[in-house]
């Protein structure tokens, strides 16, 4: 991305090359570690990481979508780039993931604002370019002077399938002539995960020595801070209702559909049951054949055929096959496998 203005650099600091930018500004990383005058940038970087990890919005110095004064730009860009360096040195995935997501959400807000203020003729708007570079989505504005944009259906599907909210289903969108119509807010939201993965890739790929003088202490502090994010889980010995139903159908000697058998087989394998304990469940099926059952289970496991190891289908897929019998215990899970191990 070339020729970024000051506003853009502050709003989208991840577009800058960390090492090069600092060099261009006449600084080395060691200076940030040792010079007391530069300590405020390191502190701001740590604050940025901590806010992100806790899910607290980072308070930027940008006002009304523009930088407030000359001091704002370095603070915004340096603190971001130093955060990238600190995270790389810390190497803790939880912090990196949370920071990337928080920064993506921050950038998303600016993308939305930039799209909204875009005029009909402004086809080269930076927001449009960023979205294209990150996600290969070509966003166009409708002719009418309103907050309405459109993208090709195929591009929309590639990005929206990762959302679980019903409003993102294609059926709940305005679709016309191969395009999906969206507001600036929705367009920006659509690329959040691309923004986030771009930022995390940036962190993983940045070149740093194993430690920088003066960074040792903040890195240790961040590592200790990250410990609060370990998640307690509870393990249930119960099967989810969809699996219970599938087993009941088979126990009654009734026919369980192909999808139902696939669900049962992949689920039980997914929770670690060996094939010789799964196969007897199918004994009551009207068309039971031991040899075929063993072959099919081995196929699911990836021991035969293409070697593909099949995974338990998502709750959404289970629902679409009329095999879902969800109860309140299923709240918050998106795959039957998660039923056994739920966060508390």
């Amino acid at each position: 991305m070339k020729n970024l203005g000051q506003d853009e650099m502050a709003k989208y600091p991840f577009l800058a090359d960390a090492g090069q930018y600092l060099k261009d500004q006449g600084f080395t990383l060691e200076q940030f570690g040792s010079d007391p005058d530069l300590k405020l940038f390191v502190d701001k970087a740590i604050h940025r990481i901590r806010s992100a990890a806790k899910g607290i919005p980072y308070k930027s110095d940008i006002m009304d979508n523009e930088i407030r004064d000359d001091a704002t730009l370095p603070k915004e860009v340096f603190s971001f780039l130093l955060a990238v360096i600190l995270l790389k040195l810390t190497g803790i995935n939880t912090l990196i993931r949370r920071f990337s997501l928080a920064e993506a959400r921050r950038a998303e807000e600016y993308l939305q604002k930039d799209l909204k203020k875009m005029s009909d003729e402004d086809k080269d708007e930076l927001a449009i370019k960023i979205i294209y570079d990150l996600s290969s989505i070509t966003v166009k504005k409708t002719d009418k002077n309103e907050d309405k944009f459109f993208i090709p259906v195929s591009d929309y599907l590639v990005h929206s399938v990762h959302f679980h909210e019903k409003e993102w289903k294609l059926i709940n969108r305005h679709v016309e002539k191969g395009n999906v119509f969206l507001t600036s807010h929705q367009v920006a939201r659509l690329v959040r995960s691309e923004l986030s993965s771009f930022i995390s890739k940036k962190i993983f790929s940045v070149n740093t020595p194993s430690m920088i003088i003066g960074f040792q202490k903040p890195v240790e502090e961040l590592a200790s801070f990250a410990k609060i994010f370990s998640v307690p889980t509870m393990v249930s010995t119960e099967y989810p209702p969809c699996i219970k139903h599938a087993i009941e159908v088979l126990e009654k000697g009734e026919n369980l559909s192909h999808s139902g058998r696939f669900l049962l087989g992949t689920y039980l394998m997914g929770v670690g049951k060996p094939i010789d304990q799964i196969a007897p469940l199918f004994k009551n099926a009207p068309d039971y054949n031991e040899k075929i059952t063993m072959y099919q289970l081995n196929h699911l496991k990836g021991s035969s055929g293409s070697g593909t190891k099949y995974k338990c289908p998502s709750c959404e897929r289970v629902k679409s096959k009329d095999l879902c019998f969800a109860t309140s215990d299923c709240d918050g899970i998106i795959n039957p496998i998660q039923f056994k191990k739920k966060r508390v």
Partner: protein
Amino acid sequence: MLEQDLQLVETAFKKYYFDHFDLLPIPERALEREFGYQKFNGGMNRHISIKSNEELRLMLITNIPSDVYCSNGYYSFPNLPMSEKDWKEADLIFDIDAKDLNLDCRQEHTCIKCLACGKISSLQLTCTSCKSTKIEIKSLTCKNCISRAKQEVFKLREILEEDLAIKKENIQIYFSGNEGFHIHVTNSLYQQLGSRERNELVDYIMFRGVMPETFGMKKYKPERSSFVNIDDKGWRGRASKHIFGSKSKRSKAITEIISEPDGYTIFQNKLENLKDVIGVKIDPNVTIDIHRIFRLPGSLNSKSGMSKILCENLEKINPFSDACFIDDEKTDILANCPIEFTLKNEKFGPYNNEKVTLPKYAAIYLICKGLGNIT
């Protein structure tokens, strides 16, 4: 299939592939596709590469397959195992089958065959003779089934062309050779989509997972101004027409719905019920599959002995005569088919386990359906 039946059917199939090879043009980009076939009483042979019409002809004549398939997917190495094929893209494919349409007429032309004792009887859950639950459902398609399946194809075509902007020339419609239609979409913007994305397209086409808010009905404080218009494009307009009836009735209908205390739920139920009326009844498993080997156009369907044929004029096509290519040589058969059927404008049956002499296409039809065999 019994030995003497097999001989008759294989000879007829071989003759078809010999006489009507012109009906099986090798698909475009055949070099990148995987072919497969099944033999009568045999398993599936997959991961086959066929490069030319000559190779296809040789495969058909030497193997006399019961069914022939070709992938919707394109690969760098179509003949290698699935994990090594290197998938590039796949045509969008749709299967519309009369058996999935819940038609009332099905009762009249469906029977059961007991897998334990072989008894054929009218549609029920258990065998009338030995009470076994291991039964096979046998259905013979009727004109109504085909006509209703055609309506689904028209609905699908409208969505493909108008909502998804797929060009008419890239949509090919085929009679499946048995109970419905196969629709192939080639060279579209959707070629690269994976299974999950195709699943979303399926939900869109089937009108599944729709929210009242999409049509302007809010859960709290619904407003008249937020409702979509009847002449809006896509599902918004299409569904609104069904919900409100007409432009003149729209205003009154909205007033009624927003003044109801449980208007949101009522609207939601209306949409749910509408799914079965306006949603296109495609087989989701077919469309989401990007590695499927799908029946090859022009090949015979072993469930009926009829061909998968291109429908240039869907309205006019009559598969019971247009897709029936087996000759009419007189053939003796023991027919056990309690249902009347029509082929090449001639009515046959019902037959109560009786010896009859039929044209070969009708005899093959009954054998393929498992409702007759050579005496």
